């Protein structure tokens, strides 16, 4: 079992004829993901690595039965692409695009929450269910099948932690990157219940960072979970008022400090190691 995606997932790539879209379509296909369609307006009838291209997401969904969309279109067009995916009725839209204006995402996220579609991202690396399906840009060679659910705000730090788990023989059910934007489609509190409900997930690793209060909100939910959670917070030493790369990674107005997050998580029994290298051991202890 896994969350959100598995080997039966049928994926449509929005922006498939672009440089990024094309590159990652090949990577996803190589991993074994069923990429069944691509969308680029005006290019229907073409194929990319054997994947048929359609003019609209609605056409692609109608013709191929795709249920997951992954979006590789520039920031200017990405909000519209998210809405188009929701209109076509996919279960999950994964927006990889970085640099979308915040107010655009305020509109998009609030709208999509009222539809049947779940939005992951924007500015996220996507997700991967080892040996079954990868949607987005996470490297496939760092994961292995196993009992740990991973949910994270950052990309490369997640690769770092997941590859360490894998090296130490601890596999994963699904790794979900929710992204570093201030208004994400999925927050920790949206993803944690999926792992709680997944019978194969025995332990969850939650990788947070400074900025916002998503980790604090998650702590409240974790106190009701039956499964153990290990936390990690990146940016403990970052100064207030400085945006650390991600638009969402900023301590401002006394909010979003690492200390507040560590305290909130510790208060509900979640260990938050100082160094990421301690994570595999903490997971192993809880796997028993």
């Amino acid at each position: 079992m896994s969350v959100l995606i598995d080997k039966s997932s049928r994926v449509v790539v929005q922006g498939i004829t672009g440089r990024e879209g094309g590159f990652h379509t090949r990577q996803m296909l190589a991993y074994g993901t069923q990429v069944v369609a691509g969308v680029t307006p005006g290019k229907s009838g073409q194929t990319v690595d054997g994947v048929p291209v359609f003019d609209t997401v609605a056409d692609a969904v109608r013709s191929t039965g795709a249920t997951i969309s992954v979006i590789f279109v520039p920031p200017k067009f990405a909000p519209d692409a998210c809405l188009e995916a929701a209109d076509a009725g996919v279960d999950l839209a994964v927006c990889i695009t970085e640099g979308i204006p915040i107010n655009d995402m305020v509109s998009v996220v609030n709208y999509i929450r009222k539809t049947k579609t779940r939005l992951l991202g924007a500015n996220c690396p996507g997700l991967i269910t080892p040996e079954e399906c990868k949607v987005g840009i996470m490297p496939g060679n760092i994961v292995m099948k196993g009992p740990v659910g991973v949910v994270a705000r950052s990309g490369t730090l997640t690769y770092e932690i997941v590859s360490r788990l894998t090296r130490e023989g601890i596999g994963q059910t699904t790794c979900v990157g929710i992204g570093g934007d201030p208004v994400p489609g999925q927050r920790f509190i949206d993803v944690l219940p999926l792992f709680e409900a997944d019978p194969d997930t025995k332990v969850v690793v939650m990788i947070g960072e400074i900025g916002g209060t998503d980790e604090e909100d998650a702590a409240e939910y974790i106190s009701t979970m039956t499964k153990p959670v290990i936390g990690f917070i990146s940016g403990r030493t970052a100064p207030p008022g400085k945006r650390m790369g991600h638009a969402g990674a900023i301590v401002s107005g006394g909010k979003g400090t690492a200390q507040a997050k560590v305290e909130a998580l510790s208060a509900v029994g979640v260990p938050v190691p100082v160094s990421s290298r301690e994570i595999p051991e903490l997971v192993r202890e809880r796997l028993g």
Partner: protein
Amino acid sequence: MKIHEYQAKQLLGRYGVPVPEGEVAVTPQEARAIAEKLGRRVVVKSQVHVGGRGKAGGIKLASTPDEAEAVAGKILGMDIKGLTVEKVLVEAACNIEQEYYLGITLDRAAQKNLLMVSAAGGVDIEEVAASTPEKIARVLIDPAVGLCDFQIRQAVFGAGLDPRALSGAGKFIQALYKAYIDLDCSLAEINPLVLTAEGTLIAADGKITFDENALFRHPELAQYAEGSEEDEIEAEAHRRGLQYVRLGGEIGIIGNGAGLVMGTLDEVKDAGGTPANFLDIGGGAKAEVVANALEVVLLDPNVKGVLFNIFGGITRGDEVARGITEGSKRLDIKVPIVVRLTGTNAEEGRAILAATSLVPAETMQEAAAKIVSLARG
């Protein structure tokens, strides 16, 4: 991106937000001329990107053009929290009867924009929020329908403003919200919002922060970006398209991905070092970007060592290694450099680096420990 008060007032004025009449001066003589033209009592305000200007003596009243020239002479060139005052705003002083707070910003937890109104204006609103949150009336704005007039009434009544403020508040706040949305702001704040003795509302101060992701929609705002950085190296890094934040320590840090770089800063600190900077080369960086990054980090004279932490995904280890060697050839490097490369093409990258004097490391913890001890010499 932050802009100066006078720039914020110019922009807000265009949207119909009432602002005092005034102009910018760079010399005391200009300040005098503006005061003469206004023909009334003025306030002379330093234009620097820090809070607490009033407390630092950077805001003064002047009753006559002579006085305006004299106070401008004192404020221009003044140092406020490390920044030199190069411009002053000279504007008509208003007859203050009440000082309120008005702000619109993103509420991340609610994922909506938030209107905040308080009768306790003029002071640090973060302090009010922390100690007496009940004094701030808040309403969340549904992006689909926008800010509704009834919500403005809720906020204004909720905050307990003087009844005379009510008639002007609707138009004032709608104008501010329109500016906030049209200009893609992440903050638009009027503090203080002044109720004058005549019963009108006017923005005695104005603060706007733009969402940098939306600047592509606002080419006209590019003029404000010039000179808005507080730090020269940060300004240079941004000109080269690098995500760089100066942190004041001794270990230069370069990595790919914001989370990984933040994690590396934490590890360096734990190893007993102090990070000089945050620098994220982003995904898929080519050799040239890496060389550029190294050059920017070494602009900081405090840097005693540099740590590269690269987890290859889209970013390729061999590209990074080539960038590091090119960069170190181009520059006369006197500090130790530790490189931790893993992921895509890391083997090839390590082979390129083997022929150099760069110090390799297996893990980020090992890399942090190595650079901290090497930098100590």
